[in-house]
């Protein structure tokens, strides 16, 4: 992300100003890492992670200003000899004149913010994490059913949209139909988001394109939702073995995050909508610690154990 773009678009939110000259704004932030400069300010360059955005707080500025001119020049030169993407001085403080000069020469932008260091670090880290998050687009429909993000997948024309339309009718919410933008947040979470261009439109074969927001209102839609279960719709096939007990928890991966998977065969006459609701409710139960199939089997095993005990006693 070009620093120029960051400055232009986020100036107000991050309360930014620029200390170096405009040409330094061509520099690119290349990852989501934010850190304090640390020991490089004493000339210790081993293990210096220079590809990060460096934030200078009160401690750093007071330290730099306490240095004699020679030492300051030396340490600044050493630090700026690396390809640092961007430096930010927080709390409305000003960087030493020398730092601005050297940064200008090296093409490193030095921004300023009136925000406190901790606050700015947190905000920037969150912003960059989202910007650099791995993302993909998939052909699916995402719905929020009882607060659970269900991602309906399957071949074109199978009925993902129609399914979710019925769910909306029953009070659930549509995030996005057809082209879902998915980003990974942190290690274990994937979030599906709508596209501004497509809004909350949906294509229903035979009907055409409908606008869920206009038809059903604000409570029928949402802009983004964490994906928690993948519901894979398929045409029912004779020779395929479908899950019969629910003891096996199938999973699938999206952007390297493992998600529960439920495969639902479509058979004419079967109510797919309520299956979707039950998938969501079952997911909530499992999170509470109650795994229905396992519980059922446990009681069954106990009962069989009991019967065998009684049989053995009566021999």
């Amino acid at each position: 992300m070009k620093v120029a773009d960051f400055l232009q678009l986020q100036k107000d939110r991050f309360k930014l100003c620029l200390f170096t000259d405009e040409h330094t704004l061509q520099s690119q932030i290349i990852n989501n890492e934010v850190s304090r400069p640390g020991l490089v300010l004493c000339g210790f360059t081993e293990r210096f992670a220079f590809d990060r955005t460096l934030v200078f707080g009160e401690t750093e500025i007071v330290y730099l200003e306490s240095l004699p001119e020679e030492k300051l020049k030396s340490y600044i030169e050493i630090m700026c000899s690396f390809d640092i993407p961007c430096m930010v001085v927080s709390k409305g403080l000003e960087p030493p004149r020398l730092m601005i000069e050297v940064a200008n020469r090296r093409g490193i932008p030095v921004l300023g913010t009136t925000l406190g260091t901790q606050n700015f670090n947190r905000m920037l880290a969150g912003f960059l994490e989202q910007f650099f998050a791995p993302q993909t687009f998939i052909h699916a429909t995402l719905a929020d059913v009882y607060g659970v993000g269900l991602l309906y997948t399957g071949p074109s024309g199978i009925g993902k949209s129609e399914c979710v339309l019925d769910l909306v009718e029953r009070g659930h919410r549509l995030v996005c139909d057809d082209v879902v933008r998915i980003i990974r947040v942190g290690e274990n979470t994937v979030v599906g988001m709508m596209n501004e261009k497509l809004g909350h439109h949906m294509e229903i074969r035979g009907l055409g394109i409908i606008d869920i927001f206009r038809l059903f209102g604000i409570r029928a839609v949402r802009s983004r939702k964490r994906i928690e279960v993948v519901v894979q719709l398929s045409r029912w096939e004779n020779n395929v073995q479908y899950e019969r007990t629910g003891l096996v928890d199938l999973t699938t991966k999206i952007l390297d995050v493992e998600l529960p998977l439920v495969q639902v065969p479509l058979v004419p006459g079967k109510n797919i909508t309520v299956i979707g609701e039950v998938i969501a409710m079952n997911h909530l139960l499992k999170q509470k610690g109650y795994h229905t199939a396992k519980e059922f089997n446990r009681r069954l095993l106990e009962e069989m154990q009991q019967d065998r005990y009684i049989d053995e006693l009566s021999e």
Partner: protein
Amino acid sequence: MAQLQKELTVLNKLGLHARPAALLVQMTNRFSSEVTLRKNDIEINAKSIMGIMMLAAEYGSTLLVTAVGDDAEDALNAIQEIFNRKFEENDEGEE
């Protein structure tokens, strides 16, 4: 099972708006192969009309069509044909 690709240019003056998108999606759905369209770094399923419209492919833009399946070659040829015929539109966007 073949995987084939082709680069096609949008020749319609008004680009891939609703009408040509509908024609294209009706065409792609005739084949069993999976068909995708890519513009720059966005790739969408060409069997979905919303996906095609999201590309906002304007006049002169280049799209990469990929077909994977038993009838991939037929699919690509048919798609190329419809692109070349400008989706049966004249310069004013009428049939």
